[in-house]
């Protein structure tokens, strides 16, 4: 059975860790479908001879030297956080609850 717009919206919301109520889902599903339909229009174009645009600029190979520079104070970072604790950013307990990339080495 093909995915309905509601299925796609639910799955996308889950990937974005958004909790949507049934009412929100009902309101957003048609809007989401309209967006997807617009992408269908784009996808239907024959772009066989067009090179992919990977960046908005034509810059290439922009690099900087490996010289340290001061960043921001911890206090400034933590001021923007809802729950700073002992210099850390505290967040709801997440172990096992979310996808992890290979990079995350855990604690």
């Amino acid at each position: 059975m093909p995915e309905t717009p509601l299925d796609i919206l639910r799955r996308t919301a889950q990937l974005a860790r958004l909790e949507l109520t049934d009412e929100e889902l009902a309101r957003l599903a048609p809007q989401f479908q309209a967006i997807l339909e617009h992408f269908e229009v784009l996808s239907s174009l024959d772009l066989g001879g067009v090179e992919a645009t990977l960046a908005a600029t034509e810059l290439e190979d922009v690099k900087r030297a490996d010289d340290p520079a001061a960043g921001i104070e911890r206090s400034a970072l933590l001021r923007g956080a809802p729950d700073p604790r002992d210099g850390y950013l505290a967040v709801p307990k997440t172990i096992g609850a979310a996808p992890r990339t290979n990079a995350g080495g855990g604690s």
Partner: protein
Amino acid sequence: MSPLRPDGDDWIFEASGTRWVPVIGLEVHAQLATRTKFLCPCAYEAGAQPNTQVCPVCTGQPGALPQLNAEAIKLAVRAALALGCDVAPRSKFDRKNYFYCDIPKNYQITQYDQPYCTGGGIRLASGRFVRLNRIHLEEDAGKAIHDRGDVTLVDLNRAGVPLIESVTEADLQTPEDAAAYLTALREILIYTGASSADMEKGEFRCDVNISVHPEGEEWRTKVEIKNLNSFSNVQAAIRYEVPRQILAWESPDPADHPVQETRLYDVAAGVTRSMRKKEGEADYRYFPDPDLPPILVPAAFIERQRSLLPELPAARRERYQRDLGLSEYDAGVLTLQRAVADFFEATARLSGQPKEACNWITNELLRALSGDEIEATCIDELRLKPFDLSELLGLLAAGKVGGGAARQIFSLMLTSGRAAGEILVDLGLEQIDDEEQLSEWCREALAGRASVAAEVRAGNLKAIGALMGPVMAASGGKANPTRVRELLLRLIHDAD
């Protein structure tokens, strides 16, 4: 643990009449040894206070723009060349999207379909060649700490540190293969200076992919195992996981069969546990990062980096045995760390005595470094340099100093950083060769020890030790023992 045991060294398992073959691949994340992060100029040191090595870029502040660290590209290229990879003249960066507290931008900058290098591999001592599929550059995630109360604590210091992720083909079959490959890869990264690869600091982290299939059949579902923070854990996890999968496949109920998933290795229990079902690739919604222009790696740059590569450990071990006559064991000890191998080579060259240089380094020097008589814990921190050790070896070879005195001088060289010749003169440790003086001590030793002399005369040469002792004592340990022995023998036989 299962009753299954591998059938011989090739690790094929017999179960209910089926021969099961394990297939193993490794993914290694290694932090590059740059001073600053990959995409921002924050300095990074493991172990700093949490959230003190951060800036708008690595904490994902709106509007912040990343900029590539040239040194990271250089080190990554060096590692690739040492591993025999083909470096792409051009590659790009992509966003891997996922939501997790250790990745503040909600995406990781990585390389998806255009890694900076492909191919290459490592030949293991067993002869097996482990092919690399690719290596790509990416940024590290922050650290999430789960064991402090009811919340997860996040430290973003590590977020944005440059990593190379190397992915092998599934060319390995046994736990020993895995350990041998990881050891060799780690050595190469350290030798090339690409990474310090300290596992305790998280600079070298590995994941293992394992599947099993009946011999001659198609490969089956693979399982990824994480949380392997030592080579012995990697081996233990493989030893557990392979029989687990075989037994799961042997179950008549398909619901018991292995599924594509990520499992964590539980060190305490010695088992792997299901962590989550693996996300499909599409769920990461990779797309090219619009903030980072593609990187170009010109041929001239590659050749320049190739010319700067050091001789790698396996080649050094072979050369030490072939050209310098060292044992396989000694060659192995010397090449464990590049700094030690470099120290040895300089000492051997300056002194012209490779075997002696090897003995002093593997016995005295490495022992001193592991003990607490001196502050230095690695060879680079020593005040003693290869020139100093070669000078001591020269004094020994010329017979100007005996073995005991040499060790005494060596120990003072380590603590004071002074030259061997200087200490020798200061402490009056010069070996005494003066025949008249030595003869006098020998005559004194012989006096009253006629029975010992008689024993020696009767052919028991070992008895001469009872005469050597008093001479060495009389000289304060400085008499040249070879000369003393000659003189004693001459005096005993002259008395005939």
